[in-house]
């Protein structure tokens, strides 16, 4: 594990919301190409940790590197100094993000949603971006919806578009923040299937979810968080079936 260069490395990450410490010196290593699922009770700091990886959330202490690059900050003597907004925006091209609430752009078509970022960031011409977008939409099974608007799609379809959009910049790492929590139960499966299709394709996935069944079958590693700390991590067979920590056992007994 430690012999491989980490795709995502979090070291000593701490974050306060007022007097409340949501992240408490968190260390996390994610191997390239792996699927890491983060589980835990609400308020455990799962989403905050995920959002810190692409600097949507600023850490008060600690650091994040993605493929060896320090994210959102640079070293300045013994301290870390925040980068300019422009530099942070440029770094995010390497990191895809899928939101719980999809956050598609409602005034743009599905195709425009997916093709916008590569063109806006100057990484592709309009034609290239369109072709890539159509490919990605076909991959998530929505090629025929290219000209539709997000408001005309079901929640599950919207989230699959959001996944295609996150992949448009060919990121090495894709982060999912509870991608199925806003969906009707019968739509969860299609989104999980789209995520599963990415696993093993070389892209590193970090997924915050409450879908324990999905974690068991798709994850290479499961991370259990509680009260701003990583309590326990390991292969799903260990963490989910033979948890060592009583807090993990208690949580799993409630959700399973």
């Amino acid at each position, binding site marked *: 594990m430690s012999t491989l260069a980490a795709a995502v490395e979090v070291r000593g990450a701490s974050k306060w919301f007022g007097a409340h410490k949501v992240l408490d010196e968190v260390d996390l290593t994610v191997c390239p190409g792996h699927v890491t699922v983060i589980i835990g009770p609400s308020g455990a700091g799962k989403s905050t940790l995920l959002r810190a990886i692409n600097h949507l959330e600023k850490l008060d202490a600690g650091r994040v590197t993605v493929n060896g690059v320090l994210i959102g900050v640079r070293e300045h003597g013994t301290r870390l100094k925040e980068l300019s907004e422009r530099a942070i925006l440029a770094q995010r091209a390497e990191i895809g993000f899928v*939101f719980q609430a999809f956050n598609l752009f409602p*005034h743009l*078509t599905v195709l425009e949603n997916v093709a916008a970022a590569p063109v806006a960031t100057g990484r592709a011409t309009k034609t290239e971006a369109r072709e890539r977008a159509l490919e990605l939409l076909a991959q998530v099974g929505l090629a025929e919806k290219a000209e539709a608007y997000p408001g005309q799609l079901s929640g599950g379809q919207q989230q699959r578009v959001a996944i295609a959009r996150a992949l448009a*910049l060919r990121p090495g790492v894709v982060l999912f923040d509870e991608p199925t929590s806003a969906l009707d139960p019968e739509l969860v499966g299609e989104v999980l299937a789209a995520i599963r299709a990415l696993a093993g394709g070389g892209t590193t996935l970090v997924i915050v979810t409450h879908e324990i069944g999905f974690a068991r079958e798709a994850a290479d590693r499961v991370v259990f968080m509680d009260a701003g700390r990583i309590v326990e991590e390991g292969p799903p067979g260990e963490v989910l079936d033979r948890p060592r920590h009583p807090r993990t056992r208690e949580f799993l007994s409630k959700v399973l």
Partner: protein
Amino acid sequence: MSTSAEPAEAIGITESPHRDLAAQRVIPLRHPGRWIATAVVVVLAAQFVHGLATNPFYQWGRFGYWFARPVILRGLWVTLEVTALSAVLGLLGGVVLALARLSHNPVLRTVSWVYIWLFRSVPLIVVLLILFNFSALYRTLSLGVPFGPSFFRFDENKLATELVVATIGLSLNEAAYAAEVVRGGILSVGRGQREASAALGLPRWYQFRRIVLPQALRAIVPAYVNQLIGLIKGTSLVFYVSLLDLFGQVQTMSSTYPGDVVPLLLVATAWYVILTSLVSLAQYWIERRLRAGERG
């Protein structure tokens, strides 16, 4: 249906309303009150229209005489000029004020807040009259470093024609209201939209121009048109700073031809109605354009 029909037949009801339960139509509740109200309103409206047409008090002949007189059209042109200039300058000022109020800079936020608070508190007529008397307060207006050297120096008396005073007054006032309209529009775009833009690494200017603004416009347009209609009617106050707009010309003509006061006021009414109707029409068209995409 058939299961519920069986026991009824067993009981032996000969005629069978039960068999056609599915075909039983529901008669909607009648609303006689609405019909009565309609009749009353129609009668009153007809009386009013009849009165308009037949009451000699309105002097429709004189209305026709004045409606497109050059003197009135000159006033109308001034009204249009002042409205257009103030609408554009006010909107630009409003956008700047709104962005200042939404910025992270506490000084900009406070200055913007104070400006909006002040100009929303002071009646437009007072602003206009203060500006009109500005030359008495400040002999010259200079632009430069406070207490330091000045780069430009204007002589107030030469600078301030009535049109300029009126436009500045209306624009200052308009900017305060437009700022709130624009700010509300920008805030109506959800946080998720900005987060998604940031997560995709979209450049800042692209985020504002292509993601936030088009969505904000949908909230801004109706509110700003409302504001614009207020502005059109607000221009009638510039008469008090000696600018002969539509209302000013009507007032002047009324004092020259006291017998034509009513038809002259009706001419002003008609033109203001025409102007605001045109603006409403433009609003309808713009809103349809903004929504066009979503219907697919």
